[in-house]
């Protein structure tokens, strides 16, 4: 006895979700390219892209072309990649830890990656053979180490690893790593303002070089996570349950942890710590289109990208000509959502 109508309905709803998210991304992209201190008309923007793509030199304004192609376009792409990376990393951490409050920021992974990044940037060392990739690789390793330490500590505190225990552990590690950062900064004697603005996150003036740094890790990490989407579904019911459903929990868990850390580390390396994207986006996606990770992960990628593009747009336009750190905007958005999720979880448990 099947009900084809409802089944098609829910399948349609998912495809509608993809369509809507793609449109949202496109709109965010257009807005971010066209708006700013210099307004670029939509038609002009399309002409510039057309021209650059096919090498035809139409009647495009050279200044606008520079703004679009050299300044705004890489910035928007970087914002999109960072947002997408953080969102999918958040979604996978949540599934793995069956904890809707987990995200790279609340777990302290972002702080860990920052320590790695700051070390690389301000001590200015390179690992032989890696060149520019020293920065993301060190960040990723720091992120992974932090994650393992946080989870190990949480398990040590309480074997069942309750939601609150993990988050509290994340906060402890965040503060600790934050202090190490401050210490390092103080010792290097660099100009404080610049570092702090980097810590609060920014995607400005990074250029294509940074996109090249994050892109391979984004592609690899997202691919690995989506490959493990069904396993994440099973693990959202607990590791024992996943084992009984036939998931090779130990191996899959490390895949997910490593991929999540890779995405977080790479994102932090190019943009600093941008909080709450990994919390807000998957939460919204789940509310709108259900909890199935096979869809939550790709939809989080699309919407994470859009959200960070828009946040960046707001950050650079709201008090123009001054630019706000993008982390300020995401935190303004994310902290209340964090509170809301906590309230919801509590209510449900009291039931």
């Amino acid at each position, binding site marked *: *006895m*099947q009900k084809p109508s*409802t089944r098609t309905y*829910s399948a349609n709803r998912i495809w509608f979700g993809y369509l809507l998210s793609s449109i949202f991304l496109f709109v965010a992209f257009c807005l971010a390219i066209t708006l700013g201190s210099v307004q670029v008309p939509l038609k002009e923007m399309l002409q510039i892209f057309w021209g650059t793509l096919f090498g035809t030199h139409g009647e495009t304004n050279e200044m606008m072309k520079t703004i679009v192609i050299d300044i705004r376009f890489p910035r928007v792409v970087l914002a999109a990649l960072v947002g997408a990376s953080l969102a999918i990393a958040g979604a996978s951490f*949540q*599934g793995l830890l*069956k*904890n*809707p409050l987990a995200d790279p920021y609340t777990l302290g992974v972002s702080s860990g990656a920052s320590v790695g990044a700051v070390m690389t940037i301000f001590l200015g060392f390179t690992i032989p053979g890696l060149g520019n990739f020293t920065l993301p690789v060190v960040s990723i390793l720091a992120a992974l180490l932090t994650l393992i330490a946080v989870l190990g500590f949480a398990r040590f505190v309480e074997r069942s690893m309750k*939601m609150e225990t993990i988050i509290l552990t994340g906060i402890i590690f965040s503060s600790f790593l934050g202090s190490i950062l401050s210490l390092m900064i103080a010792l290097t004697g660099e100009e404080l303002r610049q570092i702090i603005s980097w810590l609060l996150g920014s995607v400005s003036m990074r250029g294509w070089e940074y996109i090249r740094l994050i892109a391979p890790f984004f592609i690899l990490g997202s691919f690995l996570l989506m*490959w493990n989407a*069904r396993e994440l*579904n*099973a693990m*959202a*019911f*607990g590791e*024992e*349950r996943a*084992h*009984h*459903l*036939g*998931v*090779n*929990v130990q191996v899959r868990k490390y895949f997910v942890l490593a991929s999540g850390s890779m995405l977080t580390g790479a994102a932090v390396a190019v943009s600093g710590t941008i909080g709450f994207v990994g919390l807000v986006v998957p939460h919204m996606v*789940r509310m709108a289109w*259900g*909890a*199935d990770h096979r869809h939550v992960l790709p939809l989080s990628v699309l919407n994470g990208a859009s959200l960070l593009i828009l946040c960046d747009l707001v950050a650079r336009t709201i008090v123009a000509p001054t630019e706000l750190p993008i982390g300020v905007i995401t935190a303004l958005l994310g902290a209340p959502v964090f509170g809301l999720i906590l309230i919801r979880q509590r209510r*449900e448990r009291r039931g």
Partner: protein
Amino acid sequence: MLNVKEVSGGYGEHNVVHDVSFQLQQQEILGILGPNGSGKTTLMKMISGLHPLSGGAISFKGRPLSDYSSKQLAKEMAVLPQLHSHAFDYTVRETVSMGRYPHQKGMFALWTEKDEKAVVEAMVQTGVLSFEHQSIQELSGGERQRVFLAQALAQEPKLLLLDEPTNHLDLSYQKQLLDLLKDWTTTHQLTVISIFHDLNVASLYCDRLLLLHEGKTVGLSSPGDVLKKDIVERVYQARVHTQAHPELPKPQITLLPNHGRHKQDLIRKEQFHVSAAHVHFTAEQPLKSLSSAVIGAGLGWHRHFVNRHVPMDYSCDDSYRDMCDYADQHGWNSSDTVGMMTAVMVEDVVIREYHDDDLSIVIAVTAGVGNAVDVSLAHKRKQKEAIGTINSWVFINGKLSDEAFIQAMMTATEAKVKALQHAKVKDPITDTLATGTSTDSLLVASTQSGPFVQYSGTVTALGKLIGRGIFECTASAIESYWHRKKSQ
């Protein structure tokens, strides 16, 4: 199919399970029982491959358990845990569909017709199809338990491991779930191992029971062999009583609580009320009674006892209902009442008390011998039953065993026959000595406090009291009956 051989295991140095062995038969339901901390769950985790063994070996279908990958094992074996955690709003269908994980192949894991069929069948069988699109967070504990059972069944396992499956379920779903599993053992060649807390449920549904105590096997056999009074009392440290299930040849365990019943006052003949309508006695505390009355028959506990007069031409389609109404009208809770009927004038009841040391009984008899029967020749007559005419009550101030109750009935019956012979009551049809009337009724009730009576055959202390008492009272009642007949 599953061979557990001298398995030990636990946490750290400390072994929780010691040397447990059993061989699982195809399609059986094996129940694992034991007090808290007896190693049930640990053993289960070792069988499901979740917990390492520190000794012994487990093999499944002839291959060691460790040879199987998680996925291979999940195709053969499904587990329904005791507690479920769930952090996200999965729908019921999504949750059940995850049971197909071990059967799906390749990166894209295409959803086949077979997957769909297994999922729908599991949802239908567990009755969760009607809310397949609801979130599992919105469900009650019992509904959720059924969803996870559906998930396990969607795995199409050959072996199903359950940890207290009926935990959150009310009585009707407990029965449904266990009936379903029993059914699947035949229809789907399913074999089941389940942990139970409830010994009686385990006894009813399991083919064999494994009783664990401090990690060691105490018994591994049929429910009848494992659930013996002395074994259960030793393992669970609780006073229990075992008895047969009314429909199945399975033992049922009843707890015997420590709080005793209040001391019972002695039953005296002065406590009986006699009127033209009925003879009636209400006990302070319920009495354990065995009777062939109209209501409250069989073995049970009752407080009110009534022998009601009905006219000669009384006819009622539902005398049971009528008797219940009668009791309720008089303020006696009908489920607490033993009620008999007679056409005899109940004012002629003979009530007497008999004593022997601290043992005492009260006997009440109403008799009419209008339709006396010789039981040895009763096969010759074709007559409808009439209303009972010799109604005998025996109240005993003592504590009787089950066998004493039955012997009391026998002794009372023999004494009644003797009284009829003594009065030379004849069967009017065969003209031979009668042994009773066609619908005599007998009640034996005891306070179950005071002196303990193991047997009540004819030469025991109680048997002697009953024999003499019933004989005298019946003889006297017959005399009154004849006297009234003559005077009419």
